[in-house]
């Protein structure tokens, strides 16, 4: 199988008054056509920057190094104008904060039809029909009325579904979905996830799903990548990851999920401490200051990314359950 998207030694840093901030560090990631890959990791670990930078959506203060290949084309060599041709039909993104990606003074209808007219060359009428169909598919109860509304007149979850409708409008080959369902209640979430699964089936759409909801990851992805402090620290098939996690960080993450079968009013488990300062990378394992199992070696030496025979990758000197 050939990779649809392939990142090689991909890094992103921001220049800030306090020095360079290393948001993404040396990521190697290859995703095949039709695959659904989840990215999980603590807030600030670089999930959004990784996805935005892959699409070429970075401010001028950012420096990206390494390569991004999409269908065999090295995107980092393209001009901004050529890159734009990939947006919408090649790759599209559901942004994390719907309010900042919607234009508050334009009606929903024109925001959805824009891509259809510009990128797919539809007529106004065709685009309108398709937009209404899309609104219906993301479970907006009154598509006709919603077309005429402004973002501020919708609830948080409705706005999130509008953003999803815009992203899938041109049936992109690769969809980056950055926390696409965080503002949705579980019943609508289930419907939206089902819709995304249908699109994957129907159009062999590839999906990179950023989420902190490990329940969503479990149900929607073939493979999971765990990020910590800008690096990939663990990657495996979803089944393997939940059954046989190697990283102490992944374990801590799973333990801190509140669960329905837990008694009410209990104090939640936390991973104590916080992410290291991204302008001053740790000399050793980035998780060492918070790891239950850290030794002197962990604090002075960077653990390499190890790949097992089954393809399970992890970055730890003392993996859970030993090195297999």
């Amino acid at each position, binding site marked *: 199988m050939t990779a649809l998207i392939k990142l090689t030694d991909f890094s992103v840093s*921001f220049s800030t*008054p*306090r020095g360079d901030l290393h948001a993404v560090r040396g990521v190697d990631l290859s995703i095949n056509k039709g695959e659904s890959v989840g990215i999980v990791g*603590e*807030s*600030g*670990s670089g*999930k*959004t*920057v990784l996805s935005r930078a892959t699409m070429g959506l970075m401010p001028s203060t950012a420096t990206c190094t390494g390569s991004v290949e999409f269908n065999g084309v090295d995107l980092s060599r393209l001009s901004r104008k050529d890159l734009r041709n990939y947006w919408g039909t090649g790759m599209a993104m559901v942004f*994390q*904060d*719907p*309010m*900042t990606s919607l234009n508050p003074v334009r009606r929903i209808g024109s925001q959805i039809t824009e891509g259809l007219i510009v990128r797919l060359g539809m007529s106004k009428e065709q685009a309108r029909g398709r937009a209404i169909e899309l609104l219906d598919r993301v*479970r907006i*109860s*009154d598509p006709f*009325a919603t077309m005429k*509304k402004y973002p501020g*007149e*919708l*609830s*948080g*979850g409705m706005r999130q*579904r509008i953003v999803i409708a815009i992203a899938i409008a041109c049936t992109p080959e690769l969809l980056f979905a950055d*926390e696409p369902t*965080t*503002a949705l*209640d*579980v*019943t*609508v*979430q*289930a419907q939206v996830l089902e819709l995304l699964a249908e699109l994957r089936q129907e159009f062999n759409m590839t999906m990179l799903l950023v989420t*902190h*909801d*490990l*329940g969503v990851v*479990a*149900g929607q992805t073939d493979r999971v990548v765990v990020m910590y402090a800008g690096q990939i620290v663990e990657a495996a098939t979803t*089944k393997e990851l*939940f059954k046989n996690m190697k990283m102490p960080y992944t374990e*801590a*993450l*799973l333990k*801190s*999920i*509140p*669960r*329905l079968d*837990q008694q*009410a*009013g209990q104090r*939640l*488990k*936390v991973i104590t401490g*916080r992410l290291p*300062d991204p*302008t001053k990378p740790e000399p050793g394992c980035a998780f060492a200051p918070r790891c239950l199992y850290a030794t002197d070696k962990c604090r002075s030496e960077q653990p390499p990314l190890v790949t097992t025979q089954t393809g399970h990758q992890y970055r730890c000197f003392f993996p859970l359950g030993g090195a297999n």
Partner: protein
Amino acid sequence: MAGSGKIHLRPNSEPILVVQDLVVNYKVSRKTVISAVAGISFDVLRGETLAIVGESGCGKSTLGRAVLQLPRPQGGTVVLDSIEITALSGNDLRDIRPRMQMIFQDAISSLDPRLQVKNIIDEPLKAWKKGTAAQRSEKVDDLLDAVGLDPEIVRDRRPYEFSGGQCQRISIARAIALEPMLLVCDEPVSALDVSIQAQILNLLQDMKDKLGLTLIFISHDLAVVKAVSTRVLVMYLGKICEVATPDDLYAHPAHHYSRALIAAVPIPDPEASVDKIRVTGEPPSPINPPSGCRFRTRCESASDRCAAEEPQLQEIGLGHFVACHHPLIK
């Protein structure tokens, strides 16, 4: 317009917040009106956490904002600590503002992008003259620390330099700066990964214990709701369906909508079976809500009575109330 009743109110327990018959309509054009909150009543006791759950668009944020008079609701009364805030003049309302705060759903866009983080958090402290500049600056650092951000690193940066979850924590720090007595949290942890989520929830819990803070907690994450709340209010299309403790609600949901909601929670295990009682059908339009029970267009137990008569809340167990003509438990 009739609400779902008031049998669940607890006037004898000296609630700190009493909301009665709250109505919010949005006028969308000359002729059409959205009935977003349709006569809702509830109360919250001091130190309690009331969770509000329900389908996207059912009116949770509108309800939360209306309680804080942002903007003032079209009908009903809100009494906070024995003061009827719905009757206050603009100036008196302003004076009471620091005692009630809200963490907004769109954390990133609710922060002023031009300001440095320290100024964002200092803003309310300064406006209400809480101490000297030096004292306030210390307070800002304490607040940042409390929400799990390193003051050294974040103080001088601006919102766009932060991740979604980091922005959410900044807005939490700002909301708790004035040590309010009532805090309405609208999806306060939805952009946070689980470990930070837990940290923030524990922080809110500590503040509750320390300051006697009372919380209204809007969330669609039922596991989080279970962990933090004392009472849960389930809403559907501007009305109350069910009120119960989280343990009761999850173990024995009595309303047909609550049952479907609980069954839809994703399970963090790829091998878990996916049975599902699904809410099928389209959510009805709030412009023209169904007669009788608003859930009836999607309820498999709907009868003629459900179309004719609006169900009122009835007590089916100690502290467990449901507005349904044919509840799942009696």
